[in-house]
């Protein structure tokens, strides 16, 4: 049995967002972080490793600097890393991305009892689509929005959260689970982990490595091939400048209540 965990490096949206003059995101000027939900996936993988002794392989698709993130996750406890990286893969939508990552996972080798973990969704796209689409391409079952996991033998029992409660689901392995933050609290890198992470194996899968895999339809990858394309992107109009009220006393509060009442807002 082995454990595969898929992660993504994303711009940090907890601070200010830098937008270029043409309205697109200035990614270069923003700090990158490990996608928050993916950290819960990493923790789920490491917990399962603690219980079973299974090897954890962390996989990402991204530009070469994503290696730094993979090293960090190996410092947390992952055993090996795979970086899927190629110019041909750039600009892929979720459909295209999932074919490529699925081919990468197939190359690593998916065996009975293996478990793949993903985060629920990435904060730069917010689609939550790549996890389920990897599962579909690999022909394995998925459970998304997972808040609790128990492995018993060849099956996994987990809780899938719904808006108004949850379902308890038993799923056969190999399977793919997408994790939410309620699942666990991610661990920190350990000192010995940081020392060791540079000697752990990191393999790069480029376009040449994966292009002949039948899971990839070469006509549907990259910016040009992706089934979905951007028709137009635009910035929403700035809201009219709001009113900053003078002072912060009772008079100010009465004034605000009066304005809201006059506009029938309250």
């Amino acid at each position, binding site marked *: 049995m082995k454990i595969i965990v898929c992660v993504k490096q994303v711009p940090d949206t907890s601070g200010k967002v830098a937008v270029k003059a043409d309205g697109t995101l200035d990614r270069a000027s923003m700090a990158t972080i490990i996608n928050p939900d993916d950290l819960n996936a990493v923790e789920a993988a490491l917990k399962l490793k603690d219980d079973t002794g299974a090897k954890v392989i962390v996989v990402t698709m991204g530009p070469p600097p994503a290696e730094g993130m993979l090293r960090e996750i190996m410092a947390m406890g992952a055993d090996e890393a795979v970086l899927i990286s190629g110019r041909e893969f750039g600009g892929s939508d979720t459909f295209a991305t*999932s074919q490529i990552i699925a081919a990468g996972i197939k190359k690593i080798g998916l065996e009975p009892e293996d478990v793949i973990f993903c985060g629920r969704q990435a904060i730069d796209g917010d689609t939550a689509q790549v996890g389920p689409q990897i599962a579909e391409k690999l022909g394995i079952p998925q459970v998304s929005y997972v808040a609790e996991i128990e492995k018993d033998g060849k099956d996994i029992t987990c809780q899938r959260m719904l808006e108004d409660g949850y379902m308890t689901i038993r799923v056969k392995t190999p399977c793919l689970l997408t994790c939410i933050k309620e699942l666990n609290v991610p661990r920190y890198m350990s000192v010995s982990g940081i020392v060791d992470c540079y000697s752990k194996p990191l393999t790069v899968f480029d376009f040449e490595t994966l292009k002949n895999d039948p899971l990839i339809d070469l006509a549907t990858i990259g910016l040009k091939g992706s089934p979905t394309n951007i028709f137009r992107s635009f910035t929403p109009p700035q809201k009219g400048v709001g009113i900053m009220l003078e002072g912060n006393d009772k008079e100010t509060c009465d004034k605000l209540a009066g304005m809201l009442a006059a506009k029938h807002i309250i």
Partner: protein
Amino acid sequence: MVNYNSADIASFKGIFVFCEQREGKLMSTDFELISEGRKLADERGVELCGLLLGHDVEHLAAELGGYGADKVIVCDHPLLETYTTDAYTKVICDMVKIYKPEVFVLGATNIGRDLGPRVAARLHTGLTADCTHLDIDMDNYLDFLRTSSTLDVDKMKFDMEDRNLKMTRPAFGGHLMATIICPRFRPCMATVRPGVMKKSAFDEKRAASVIIDKPQVQLSIEDMDTQVLEVVKATKKLVDLIGADVVVSVGRGIGKDIEKGIALAEELAEVLGGVVGGSRATIDAGWLSADHQVGQTGKTVHPKIYIALGISGAIQHKAGMQDSECIIAVNKNDTAPIFEIADYGICGDLFKVVPMLIESFKAAKAAK
């Protein structure tokens, strides 16, 4: 590779809406999507079909008809009673291959977001997540751009004959909007954010005349790798952030007295008939339960009034509330980014300001 769905896209016709039911009850998102689907079907001059999966659910079809469905395809099977990814994906893909719709929309609920990507990947087509606006007709799309973008639409050139579904969604926490198309494959698929599309008026006549189609469902236990052991409803009443007219949210600013901060927010919410939300920081710190979270990794809300107390306004929070009709912010720091999007701002200590606000709002409401 030529796929069945890219060889002859013109043979795909009609609008499909996945109508989700839980325990035999339709979701409010279904009515929003059927209403929106009616608009698209009229723009295109085609049929609007609700796709309903379940067991003994045929009686729900009339309700969908009342909101605008011409036809409801009822897939009835004991194994469809409760949602599972594998059974629902199989049956839906079978139906798409038979009926060949050009557009297929689902609600971006936890189930829709589980099902949509799986179906799209199997059908070999694109899927756009969490859309907030849909158009087919170019004139309507340009009207939308005139009111919702900074583009100088009348100076730009467009292909006015474009008949693709134009799916618009916020990108990067709403700083950018992107309109996505799926020109080479059918159906064009989109999940639509709950609570965004307007539900139309219920039409008794339409409800009575809806066509019900009950195709044969091919499904067996061998098609399923998952088994639902139980479905549990939340015992605690969860806060309905999405349906609320007023949301009073608290942030890190309540840190010096968490209990009092939450109590003040609750009181203010009660005066205005609203509910209490929180920023990610308050949920991560365990001050409020996760169902209260407003923001990119929580809920997206657009109430009539949104009051932000002690929330600085990180992009990930703004993404979840910036479309509120009226935003009021109280923060000690006059440079907090929340003031950039607030309609009304008060710079001050929330523990001092909120009790006064409660009194002022009470008085203003009493005077009405």
